[in-house]
């Protein structure tokens, strides 16, 4: 009886037609009343702080009456200040919470109004209907990627050289430089920032290194650098010893950013400036050498005149050096003595390895360094053996390929090729398609795609 009477009460509130005297309510009415109750509940739930709604009990009036004065003491609302939400709304200028609730409702109903209201959009704005092409945000590793874009990783070494010839040339150059320093009795410390080995005007220098620097191995197995003239040795030594001005710069500004800027600037320097700089550097180096080693004659300064450098560098201005390949004349000497020069002396080995790493950007793992005893083994770490040519390539290079009655296939000559040659393949394909069978294995995917489309 209890549930029925309760329902009856609700029904009377919602003006339901109930039979007088009996507590029975039909199912239809029960459902209606239930829905009405739901609706009223939901409306009360959604409305914030009903207490402040107009038309509710006006406590202010009663307070005035109780205290008998226009200004009764105490808070306006002793059971708590208006809620934080109400306060904010008041601040934003929305007077009535009900009104704002209505606004929300209308906005939900009419999205076009919202579009006009919310933010001004460009003339090309188009509402997206699918997620295709939209920026993805917040997936896994998203944050890291965002960070990496702005702060890309920069290793401590230069980018690796890719070309095999360049690496071999670089090793040869390192070897020559180290041995030149050794023979001049300089400390085996070299200027790190040598510029791009193959882009700067070191063409002439490399050429002379390649042509005139030879290694001789004596009975004890030690290698010796043999240079055609003293002048070359001086140039080599001068080019690799640390510059004084560079040192000063380093001391002045230890800031990394400045250093990076400096390097970039160096790289961007024009040809003419470069040559000038080089010439100046040479002059500076020569003067430095003069001070450091009394054995070198002062004539060197005159020999290394800027004019000579300009003339020697002339061809470089005309042709833009191709970074992917270097001309034949810059390749290391064909004679392979230098590959067998001993690197057992740890000092030389360390210097050579360091220089090679600077020039090539390839790091050699520490455990392997112990096993490297000559440049040949070093090269084995740096360059891969060229991929052996395929039989077809060899044959195509052969004169046999020029014979008119010889046909060389680069790929396997499959039964399909055979059938195509005699014209039967199209018939086979037709017949297979007629039966709904794939002609080849790889066409299954494409067939299904075609069917879907």
């Amino acid at each position, binding site marked *: 009886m209890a549930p029925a009477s309760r329902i009856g009460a609700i029904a009377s509130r919602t003006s339901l037609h109930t039979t007088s005297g009996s507590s029975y309510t039909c199912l239809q009415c029960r459902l209606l009343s239930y829905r009405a109750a739901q609706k009223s509940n939901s409306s009360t739930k959604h409305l914030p702080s009903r207490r402040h709604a107009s038309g509710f009990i006006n406590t202010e009036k009663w307070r005035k009456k109780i205290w008998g004065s226009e200004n009764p003491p105490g808070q306006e609302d002793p059971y708590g200040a208006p809620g934080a939400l109400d306060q904010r709304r008041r601040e934003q200028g929305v007077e009535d919470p009900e009104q704002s609730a209505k606004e929300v409702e209308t906005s939900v109903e009419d999205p076009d109004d919202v579009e006009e209201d919310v933010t001004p959009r460009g003339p090309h704005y188009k509402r997206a209907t699918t997620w295709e092409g939209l920026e993805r945000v917040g997936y896994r590793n998203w944050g890291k990627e965002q960070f990496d874009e702005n702060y890309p990783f920069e290793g401590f070494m230069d980018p690796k050289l890719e070309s095999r010839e360049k690496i071999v040339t670089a090793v040869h150059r390192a070897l020559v430089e180290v041995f030149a320093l050794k023979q001049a009795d300089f400390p085996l410390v070299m200027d790190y920032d040598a510029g791009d080995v193959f882009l700067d005007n070191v063409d002439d220098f490399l050429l002379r290194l390649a042509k005139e620097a030879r290694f001789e191995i004596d009975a004890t197995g030690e290698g010796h650098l043999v240079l055609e003239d003293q002048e070359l040795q001086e140039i080599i030594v001068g080019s690799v010893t640390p510059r004084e001005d560079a040192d000063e710069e380093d001391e002045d500004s230890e800031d990394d950013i400045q250093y990076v800027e400096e390097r970039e600037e160096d790289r961007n320097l024009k040809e003419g400036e470069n040559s000038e700089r080089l010439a100046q550097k040479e002059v500076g180096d020569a003067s430095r050498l003069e001070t450091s080693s009394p054995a070198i004659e002062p004539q060197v300064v005159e020999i290394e005149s800027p004019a000579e450098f300009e003339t020697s560098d002339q061809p470089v201005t005309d042709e833009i050096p191709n970074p992917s390949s270097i001309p034949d004349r810059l390749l290391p000497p064909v004679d392979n003595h230098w590959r067998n020069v001993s690197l057992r002396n740890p000092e030389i080995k360390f210097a050579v390895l360091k220089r090679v790493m600077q020039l090539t950007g390839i790091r050699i793992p520490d455990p392997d360094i112990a096993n490297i005893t000559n440049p040949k083994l070093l090269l084995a770490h740096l360059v891969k053996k060229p991929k052996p040519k395929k039989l077809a390539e060899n044959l195509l290079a052969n004169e046999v390929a020029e014979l*008119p009655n010889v046909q060389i296939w680069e790929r396997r000559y499959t039964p399909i090729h055979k059938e195509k040659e*005699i*014209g*039967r393949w199209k018939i086979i394909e037709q017949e297979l398609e007629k039966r709904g069978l794939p002609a080849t294995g790889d066409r299954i995917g494409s067939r299904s795609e075609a069917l879907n489309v």
Partner: protein
Amino acid sequence: MKALRLLRRSGSVLSPRTRPCCFIHQTQYRNPLPLNIFRLQSTAPAQYQSAIEREDDLEPGETEPTEDFFHNAPTQEERESILSQLPSPHPQHAHKSARLSALHARLMLPPRLPLETLARCLVDPSADIDPHFNNSSLSILGYDLLGLYTSEAVLCRHPRLPTEVMFAAMWAYCGPKTLAAITREWGVEVAAAPGGEVDPGYLQCKHIEAGNASVEGTGVQVKDLPILATDPKGKPMLGEPGWRRGVSSRTVKSDHFGDEIKRTVLDYAERPELRQEDLQRKLEKGVTLETASTNFVRALMGAVYLHAGKKAAYNFFKAHILSRHLDFSKLFEFRQPTRDLSRLCAREGFESPVARILSETGRKSRSPVFVVGVFAGKDKLGEGSGSSLDEARIRAAVGALKGWYLYSPLEVNVPSQAERGGNWEPVMVDGGEVVV
């Protein structure tokens, strides 16, 4: 005798090869072709070039501009799709085919015969209906040349051959069966189906369906189908009831082998649409391998003649046709040799032939042997042996007849030799067989 300038006159056969045929209609809506597919590489100079006389030592490929439409087609797939739409291989593919060069070298063809023409010789009209790309024109020329060279070689060497034997000899030297055998001996293989993607080194034709192949779904053989047995007009095509034709009518109205010519030049002149109809029927039905091979050898003969001249053509004929051994004495078939012999003797003014026993052995035994000689007066015309007197006599008569008919002069100058720069000497051609 002044040699003819062949290249100047061969413009109709070696016309610039363009393809304005049905192929273009087929393909122009599917995918736009590069424009210069219409001007394919030719074995003959184009119209504006035909006025220029080509240097004799130059090879044809050296002077001709080779247009490369393949470079315009961007991708491999597009090229392949274009090629596969062509009814026969593109002429430019001739240089890529090892098979074709090998064939050229194997036949020791003159270097002036370009590979493109050799490739064209291998395309039967049933594969490509366009006369600029098939071997029909070349094979007509080759047919006539083969007939000329063979007939003069046979007739001048054996001036008294009967007409029937002459036809049989022609058939044996350059008939379809022989030419098909020659094609096989040359190592020319046949493509399964013609098409643009096929290697140009294959002989390309549309195969006629085998007569004993069963029609799909039924147990009936193709040859038994009523449709095929008759031509469109309802006349029976196979096993056509002929009538007896005399030898004299054959010499006038038949082809080289004494067979009736179904469509004469006059027929085509009266009704030009007949030619197209015939071609169309051939394209639909296909041809036998024998026909295709025959056309190929004939076309090659014509091509050698056009590109390399008469001498090379005759050498080619001598090397591949005339070198084949043919026993003429096996070609004879006499019904009544004794009567023929007596008629022959009467015609030639000899005394009437008399058979006499020369020797005999075992007359009473199970296997006697008689040797009989046929004499005209005191001259012995022939001698034969047999197990009976009649057999020996007939053999002797056959021997006498063969001895007469197979006379061969010691030194022969064929008429075409004079064209190739030799001296003209009239050759003896006898009256032929006796008419009984």
